[in-house]
């Protein structure tokens, strides 16, 4: 009885997992080419290249509305793509230099960080009307939203801090210091821990995602750029821009357990919905490395466009 029950659960999980991966696409911004490469993660092929002017850098996905947001630092805003038809829907003007971008978990709002204006602007994803501009720290960059949709986290790069914004009030609840120049950040699937890649101090800060209490600091490689979790939050992957590597951190022991060679200037990093394949955009090499989180080996390299950055959560879940 019990055996059959588990068998059924695993079969369902299997069906679910393969169903998800069939639809999953990775959106890679090619900053120097002014384009976005769309990778079908099942065939591991680029199936479309979409022209997006303004040095596209950041990526955010909105599965509920089937939209993809691409920040364009030199276009002073972001582009909205149809995630299914792979066409451009509209352009939204924000002003300044938009870089970090993310959407809430329900897909109702999109948040855009402005590198120079030290603010995060909130837009409605139906009308793209501006809801509010929230002043944060200096040079806000990476952002992510907690799984319960309560908090938006923002890395304030020049202030060496992370702010926690209450999404019910759209105001800052708390700000805490982390390592030097935090850039990419990630929250675990339980909303318990927040990780930041600190570019200037070559380490990762681990925070309690609710209280923002500092839990640990972990040494990684040179100029870490962004972070992503895999295998049920048990491993954290960190791109080290200047080492051409990805550090693997065991989140139980909070120690670096492996260093994987990828392409040159690895930047954006995202985990596939299968929770096992980790995609890394290599800026210098114009390609994407795919890491198997179980074997900790690079299993594929996919050619994209020039200056692949893909800053943000770029694979549809």
């Amino acid at each position, binding site marked *: 009885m019990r055996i059959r029950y588990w068998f059924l659960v695993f079969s369902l999980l299997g069906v679910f997992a393969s169903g998800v991966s069939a639809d999953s696409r990775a959106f890679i911004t090619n900053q*120097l080419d002014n384009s976005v490469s769309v990778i079908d993660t099942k065939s591991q092929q680029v199936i479309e290249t979409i022209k997006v002017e303004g040095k596209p850098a950041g990526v955010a996905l909105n599965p509920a509305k089937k939209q993809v947001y691409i920040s364009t630092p030199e276009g002073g805003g972001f582009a909205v793509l149809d995630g299914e038809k792979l066409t451009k829907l509209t352009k939204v003007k924000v002003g300044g*230099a938009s870089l970090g971008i993310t959407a809430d978990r329900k897909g109702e709002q999109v948040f855009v960080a402005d*590198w*120079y204006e030290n603010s995060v602007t909130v837009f409605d994803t139906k009308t793209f009307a501006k809801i509010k501009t929230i002043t944060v720290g200096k*040079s806000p960059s990476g952002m992510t939203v907690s799984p319960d949709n309560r908090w938006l986290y923002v890395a304030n790069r020049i202030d060496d801090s992370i702010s926690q914004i209450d999404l019910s009030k759209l105001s800052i609840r708390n700000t805490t210091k982390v390592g030097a120049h935090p850039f990419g950040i990630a929250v675990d699937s339980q909303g318990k821990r927040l990780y930041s890649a600190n570019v200037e101090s070559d380490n990762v800060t681990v925070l309690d995602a609710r209280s923002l209490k500092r839990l640990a600091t972990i040494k990684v490689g040179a*100029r870490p750029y962004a972070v992503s979790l895999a295998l049920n939050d048990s491993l954290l992957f960190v791109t080290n821009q*200047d080492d*051409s590597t990805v550090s693997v951190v065991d989140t139980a022991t909070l120690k670096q357990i492996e260093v994987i060679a990828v392409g*040159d*200037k690895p930047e954006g990093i995202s985990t596939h919905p299968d929770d096992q394949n980790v995609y890394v955009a290599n*800026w*210098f090499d114009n390609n994407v490395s795919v890491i198997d989180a179980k074997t900790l080996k690079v299993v594929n390299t996919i050619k994209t466009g*020039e*200056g692949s950055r893909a800053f943000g959560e770029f694979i549809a879940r």
Partner: protein
Amino acid sequence: MKKTSLLVSTVLFLFTGLANAHGPVRAKMTATITVDAPAAKVWDLIKNYDDMSWHPGIKSVKGDGTNNKGAIRVLTLANGTITEELKAYDAAKFSYKYKITDMSSTGTIKHAGQDEPLPVLPVGNYAAELSVNDKGGKAEIEWVATYYRAYVNNNPPAELNEEAADKAVTNVLKSGLEAIAKKVGSGSAAVEIDIKR
């Protein structure tokens, strides 16, 4: 007439202001030259990491005699020294990658109330790859450099801005590739430079 020039300067001013307000952005410079010589012959000239006698701007190089990853070389130029670390070496592909880890300064300037050192090469976080590819019996030599401007804050001084960085790197890559072409007997070949950021 006066009005027009005023307008032009205003527009230029606005544009420059905008460009300067920008934080440092990583640049990628690709310099290539195609020479009428076998790729293996060209590689033979440049393959030793601690030998840059082929480059006219570099007076001497001190290395550890190896082409091992992590090898350090110190270049002496007319105006100071540059220390570089070998990041990758691939003899089969005729290519190596390195990065600048340290530079001496050639003096300081006052900017925004601070003393700013002027590094030998006015760049930040510089990494490059030098490679030779066979193109139907000819050799295409490619030197790709990535770097930021030397000034990390907003509003850089002229000595440490993007233009200064591009000019200095162009000079290193162009004079180096021209010298290689000359040494392998293909002196009239032209260097192509492409800068993206």
